[in-house]
């Protein structure tokens, strides 16, 4: 009744090709942005912003990265945890060498390092597919983890072997380091995630994104039409790892504050892959939904007994948490194998004809 494009006539291909052709969708986007930029900073508690929103946004960005590779180009990777690490370590090195440069710029620059590494480990994808590619990207994961431990230059020869985030200011506001306020970190993360999501959406809807999807859906036909598999696959690996790298840098510099190799182990790779699959392959909305499902749902479940005044000890809650989240993942995937994004699309489709579905 309220969500329906009746009466919205498109008079140019520009309007019809827009990313959100339906007015209500455009309103919704502005609404979400308003919530994220105004309402949450005004009314959100420090816990909400620091432990829920910032990690959610960071993981959403990493998920978008992996989704570009897996959901849009059809190449599976289990190395994205390590690619996040490449972003974090290279930001650390850049911050060390260029202490006066804007740290946000350095974080974005670090993406290029992980893009380069991602392209190198993407080379096998030209010959192999599917499970075999999983194995080679897993090798990338283990190799990079090894490098993070064994090359002390990467962590500036610290005794702890960890990255310790130094204090840096942007326009006289402290954004990294232990003294940075939650809000300043939140705004930096949010702005980067919003801009990079917008860019991802633009690429996906254009020629390059189409060539990725062509490779995904039917690589032989794509080649006969004129897509060069080398370029399409490697550009996808590059963009995807760029996103992962920036997400990794954000994770360490604006959320954790310190990190060692365990922060980028294979579990992170799996976690991001789960977010992609549960959110929906080949969907940007799905990347956010998937990240929310995996990151926010456990927090909500943990909070439930406390809110309801039940006296359950913490370890029991944690056990229950694993059981509930696990069961929900299975349930959701049985109901809709294409992930939350497809559910979202079906819901919108239903809403369009509601309340007269016939």
């Amino acid at each position, binding site marked *: 009744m309220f969500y329906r494009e009746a009466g919205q006539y498109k008079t*140019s*291909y*520009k309007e*019809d*090709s827009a*990313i959100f052709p339906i007015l209500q969708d455009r309103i919704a986007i502005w609404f979400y942005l308003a919530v994220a930029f105004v309402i949450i900073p005004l009314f959100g508690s420090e816990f909400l912003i620091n432990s829920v929103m910032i990690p959610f946004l960071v993981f959403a960005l990493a998920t978008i990265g992996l989704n570009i590779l897996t959901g849009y180009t059809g190449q599976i990777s289990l190395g994205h945890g390590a690619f996040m690490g490449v972003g974090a370590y290279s930001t650390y090195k850049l911050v060390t060498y260029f202490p006066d440069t804007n740290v946000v710029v350095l974080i974005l620059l670090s993406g290029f390092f992980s893009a380069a590494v991602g392209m190198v480990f993407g080379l096998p994808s030209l010959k192999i597919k599917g499970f075999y590619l999983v194995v080679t990207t897993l090798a990338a994961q283990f190799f990079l983890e090894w490098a993070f431990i064994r090359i002390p230059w990467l962590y500036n020869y610290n005794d702890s072997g960890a990255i310790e985030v130094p204090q840096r200011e942007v326009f006289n506001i402290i954004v990294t380091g232990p003294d940075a306020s939650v809000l300043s970190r939140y705004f930096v993360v949010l702005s980067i995630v919003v801009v990079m999501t917008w*860019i991802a959406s*633009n*690429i996906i*809807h*254009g*020629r*390059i994104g*189409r*060539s990725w*999807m*062509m490779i*995904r*859906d*039917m690589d*032989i*036909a*794509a*080649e*006969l*039409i*004129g*897509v*060069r598999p080398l370029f399409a696959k490697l*550009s996808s690996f590059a963009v995807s790892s760029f996103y992962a790298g920036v997400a990794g840098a954000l994770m360490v510099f604006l959320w954790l504050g310190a990190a060692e190799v365990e922060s980028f182990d294979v579990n992170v790779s799996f976690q991001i892959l789960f977010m992609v699959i549960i959110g929906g392959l*080949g969907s940007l909305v799905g990347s956010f939904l998937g990240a929310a499902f995996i990151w926010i749902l456990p927090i909500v479940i943990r909070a439930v007994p406390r809110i309801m005044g039940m006296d359950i000890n913490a370890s029991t809650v944690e056990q229950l948490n694993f059981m509930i989240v696990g069961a929900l993942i299975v349930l959701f995937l049985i109901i809709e194998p294409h992930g939350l994004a497809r559910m979202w699309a079906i819901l919108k489709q239903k809403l369009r004809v509601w309340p007269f579905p016939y």
Partner: protein
Amino acid sequence: MSFDESYTTPDGRTIGGVLMEMRNITLRFGGVTAIKDISFDIRQGEIRAIIGPNGAGKTSMLNVINGFYHPQEGEIIFRGETRRRMRPYEAASQGISRTFQNVALFQGMSTLDNIMAGRTLKMHKNFFWQMLRYGPALQEEIEHRKVVEKIIDFLEIQSIRKKPVGSLPYGLQKRVELARALAAEPSLLLLDEPMAGMNVEEKEDMSRFILDVNDEFGTTIALIEHDMGVVMDLADRVVALDYGKKIADGTPQEVQSNQAVIDAYLGVAH
């Protein structure tokens, strides 16, 4: 009829000189010889049919033409130049486009995106503009959308523009595939069994589109088809293959009455 001269068909179309010439092509897969010493040519503006029983090497021939297989012997002369060994996308950039025996659409994309995909080679705006989807990139996108809309109109698939192609019936999928091939504005269009599995009405529609494409855009078409009625009606010239060898080449009437062709299709008493 001299080889390089153009001539006019009875229905008034002009057939030009030789566009592509296959000289003594031999293609082997290990010990199996799929194509053995075949020579034929495709002339500018004609509809050339390749027929033959199953396993005769027709699809292999098409795959050789668009660079997917590389013949061990023989040469291909395209637009007067001997073609070197090339990748399929290079063939595509030279203006060869095709459809497939089993529909090979991009199932995850809409009809519109599938046809836009066909224009990949015509779009050049760089990554930076693509990122912003603004200025030149957006303009390019819209220009190509206009061309795609013309093709959509031409093939009468306006109503399925935004539908995911996976949900379309088979006949329409074939038509979208033709649209995608046309979007590349090919000079040589290869159709691999465009009418396989269609009913009579769908075949009539498809035949009409093929003739229209040839007529309006002057596209040279090479098609593989099993329905002899269709081949006899559409094709200007027919080449017949059997067990990888050429058994006949000529006008539909000539090929139809050729004893070797009849034997290949009906079998010979031993």
